[in-house]
């Protein structure tokens, strides 16, 4: 049992590393939100390779768990996770900006297999996730709904409308994950303070768990414990580092790589050992 668990954790860490490598490849081709994509790599590995029930062969499978990337600008990480999970070939990731590509600059449900909701404007995803959860309840389904929120995004008031309604409707299949990477275009707490953040969610009626969003043990433990309380939506407040894995872009809003920097970034995440397909 212990060794099985260790193997799982090691596997998920390797998957997260591969997500990072592919994010950097996308970043090497065009401007993208690299920092916020790298900060959710570990969480996405835990979701798509451990917690979520999905079938890459049938992206619209009725029994799937749903995922909404409310911070839709970090789609490179989601695209990488979906490709690695088998929704489409990994080679497609490096076609961004090419006409006919299935890779979009923000999450696009029309173009990319496995994406349920098009996002990009902040503050939309939690409401959509709640709607999916309430639809599942009508069907008496067992599907769960995961919504990834940015921390700066929480400055949009619409999130709190959704937070209030989710608790009111006791939507316990709904799980929100806050990627608390502390940066928007500048330091989040300086620009518009969110603290005390865990207390805000608790006050809104959510069952809250705080974790280190880069510690795979903690990620798996939290995902395995869902729902944290029956009758309450669950909130994972994941403390993360923007640009995690590439020391020289940590805290950067958008990273622009030249060829030399890209090589250095790839070296930091150990791109030498990349698995293809």
């Amino acid at each position, binding site marked *: 049992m212990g060794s099985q668990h260790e193997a799982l954790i090691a596997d998920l860490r390797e998957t997260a590393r591969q997500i990072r490598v592919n994010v950097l490849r996308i970043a090497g081709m065009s401007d993208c939100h690299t920092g916020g994509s790298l900060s959710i790599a570990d969480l996405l590995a835990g979701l798509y390779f451990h917690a979520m029930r999905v079938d890459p062969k049938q992206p619209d499978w009725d029994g799937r768990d749903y995922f909404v990337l409310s911070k839709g600008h970090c789609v490179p990480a989601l695209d990488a996770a979906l490709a690695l999970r088998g929704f489409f070939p990994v080679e497609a990731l490096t076609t961004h900006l090419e006409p006919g590509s299935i890779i979009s600059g923000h999450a696009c449900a029309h173009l990319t297999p496995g994406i349920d909701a098009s996002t990009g404007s902040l503050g939309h995803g939690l409401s959509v996730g709640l*709607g*999916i959860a309430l639809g599942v309840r009508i069907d008496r389904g067992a599907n769960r709904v995961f919504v990834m929120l940015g921390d700066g995004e929480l400055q949009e008031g*619409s999130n709190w*409308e959704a937070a209030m309604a989710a608790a009111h409707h006791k939507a316990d299949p709904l799980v929100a994950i806050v990627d608390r990477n502390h940066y928007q275009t500048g330091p989040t707490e300086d620009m518009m303070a969110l603290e005390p953040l865990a207390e805000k969610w608790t006050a809104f009626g959510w069952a809250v768990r705080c974790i280190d969003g880069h510690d795979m043990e903690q990620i798996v433990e939290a995902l395995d414990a869902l729902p944290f309380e029956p009758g309450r939506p669950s909130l994972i407040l994941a403390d993360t580092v923007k640009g995690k894995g590439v020391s020289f872009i940590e805290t950067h809003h958008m990273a622009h790589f030249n060829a030399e920097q890209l090589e250095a970034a790839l070296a930091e995440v150990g791109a030498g050992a990349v698995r293809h397909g």
Partner: protein
Amino acid sequence: MAKPFGEVMVELAEQDPRICGVSCDCWGFIAPLSERFPGRAIEVGIAEQNLIGVAAGLAVRGKIPFALGMNPFVTMRCFEQIRTDLGYGRRNVKVIGAYGSGLMYAGWGCTHHAMEEVALMRLIPGMTVFMPADGYETEQAVRAAAAIEGPCYIALAGGELPGQPPEDQRRFVPGRAVRLREGSVATVMACGPTVVDAIRAGELLAERGLAVTVLDMHTVKPIDRKAVGEAAATTPLIITIEEHTVIGGLGSAVAEILAEAGSATPLRRLGLQDVFAIMSGSHADVKREHGITAEAIVAEVMGRVGA
């Protein structure tokens, strides 16, 4: 007699398990649905953005949600959610302006004037926009919207238009104007709450021996292009009337068609002339002040015929 919205919802929900309702403080409209199918009616409180997001999510799950709010707020506060989550998302959601179409809440002040509802909804690719004029058309629009795959907007209306045949002899075809009166002097086009003004103008002009065509444009998008083209070809003047700013609404939709067709037929757009209706008074007072009346239509026609 037309059925109330709540009863129509129950009927539609019985026929199609995907039908559900979401309310932004409009619970009365979907309470019958809730009684019949608990769980398929959802209240989100006074929160338009969440209303539309939740409806979009229900549609992701394959439902056909009717999302209700008060007209000015359900079209403006959550415009981006409608544009992005419903329009771009191509979600099968029916946005319902449950009360307060046009200048209905005239005396309550400009915050409550839905003077942009048509313009905003018309902007969104793939959105069908219904402006029914009475209870019959409202019921028909609701049924039509349920059958349309894609986002729709309906500004609910009640009552009964004057001088109509029994309901079983009326017809409501989405995208097709209803000809309420025939005449060659001018064509008057109205939608929603101004159809009654257009009918009245037709009567007043008839008393003076002037026969005008009156068109009820209950579907503003997709608009009945054929009817507009015919009006331009067969009458020397077109007048649009709406409880709406003249920018972006019915008058604009008609102007776009006429201009692109190279029509020389003059067009007069009655409505709010790029102003807020800042005044105290009744619905009738505000309409009179801003020239959105049967009398204003009559004056336009008389001016043109030189009578």
